[in-house]
């Protein structure tokens, strides 16, 4: 069992761990798991939060730890580090799809956000149209903003771009 736990295998298996607030989105696809160091039956994982004040980070740490223990590792260390700075371009294609599946608009890809106008005209996750407007750059969680679709006549949320 142990010799099967290569980096690729573990990385893939970790996809079962989801964002506590977005149950379709895995932490791997979200890009918050930055390092995986395996040595025999010990593993160290380095994660970095989407927002410094993200209250879910402790829960994520615990869930990654239990997933690794259940894979058969004896020693597990999950470390939060800011040596990596998460930005919303770190969400991969699978992650963007998971966001839509959950009903959230994925963040626009940006490289570098110079102007916050990037928040206007976000495609509505229901109708895909861009006849939308920003209602509040702060939302129900630190990583979401609130928008309104003028065609659907309904509010929706976006996973905020940040860098």
């Amino acid at each position, binding site marked *: 069992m142990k010799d099967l736990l290569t980096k690729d295998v573990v990385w893939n298996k970790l996809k079962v761990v989801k964002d506590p607030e977005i149950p379709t989105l895995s932490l791997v696809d979200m890009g918050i798991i930055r390092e995986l160091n395996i040595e025999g039956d010990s593993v160290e994982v380095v994660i970095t939060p989407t*927002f*410094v*004040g993200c209250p879910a980070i402790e829960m994520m740490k615990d869930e990654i730890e239990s997933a690794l223990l259940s894979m058969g590792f004896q020693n597990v260390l999950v470390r939060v580090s800011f040596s990596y*700075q998460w930005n919303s371009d770190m969400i991969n294609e699978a992650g963007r799809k998971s966001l839509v599946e959950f009903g959230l608009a994925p963040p626009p890809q940006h490289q570098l956000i110079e102007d916050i106008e990037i928040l206007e005209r976000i495609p509505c996750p229901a109708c895909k149209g861009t006849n939308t407007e920003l209602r509040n750059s*702060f939302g129900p969680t*630190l990583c979401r903003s*609130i928008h309104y679709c003028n065609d659907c006549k309904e509010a929706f949320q976006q996973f*905020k771009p940040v860098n």
Partner: protein
Amino acid sequence: MNTPAIKELLYKIGDDQLILGHRNSEWTGLGPILEEDIAFCSMAQDKIGQSLAIFSILHELGEPDPDTNAFLRDAKLFKNCQYVEMPIGEFDFSIVRHFLFDNAEAIRFKHLTDSSFIPLANLSKKIKGELKYHTMHANTWIKRLGNGSKESIDRVQKALNDSWTMALGMFEVSPYEAELIQEKIFVGEKVIMQEWYESISATIEGTELSLPDLYSSKPMLGGRQGLHTESLIKLLDEMSEVIRLDPEAEW
């Protein structure tokens, strides 16, 4: 590594974030519109989270753990500027403080990304991105109220005038200022203040408001040396009520 100077700097910025974070949280349920309730409590969560990250670096440098440091430290050991400890007042006062403080904070963290103290430089790279949302929120309100009715313009102008000497206290220099600059840990308050004045002037120019002259008044100093007003004592009493009743409480 110049640990005493670094600790002084970390306490100053960590305490500013913690105290203003708590003040922001007081708008929860009281905001003039629902969106402002959400905005102020989100910014509170950001700022308190950022202070936790700064206190964690301090802990690695041998200071008490973040909870002890935040909740059980004596007021005279707090290094926040007095401006952030002032009560929230009316919405005009809070919006003006949000505008004056957050623009300074954004410039401060932008420069700290170049700090020779790497843990702080790394953290600042992250915080800098988050603060774009804070300054955008503040600048939008200043433009809106500063171009609004006579009442909104007058009230914001009065809040600006009343806040000015307190706001200048944000740039009170540390006893380690020269060393911090020389060792490239921090660019220094003078640079931050000048860039801040240019930045807020650019927003104010598009409104009916006017900024007091940078050197017209004497800054309200003392916060960085641990001198505080009654307001901080009351705030700390409130913040630490639970931990003093039950030090083991978890929530």
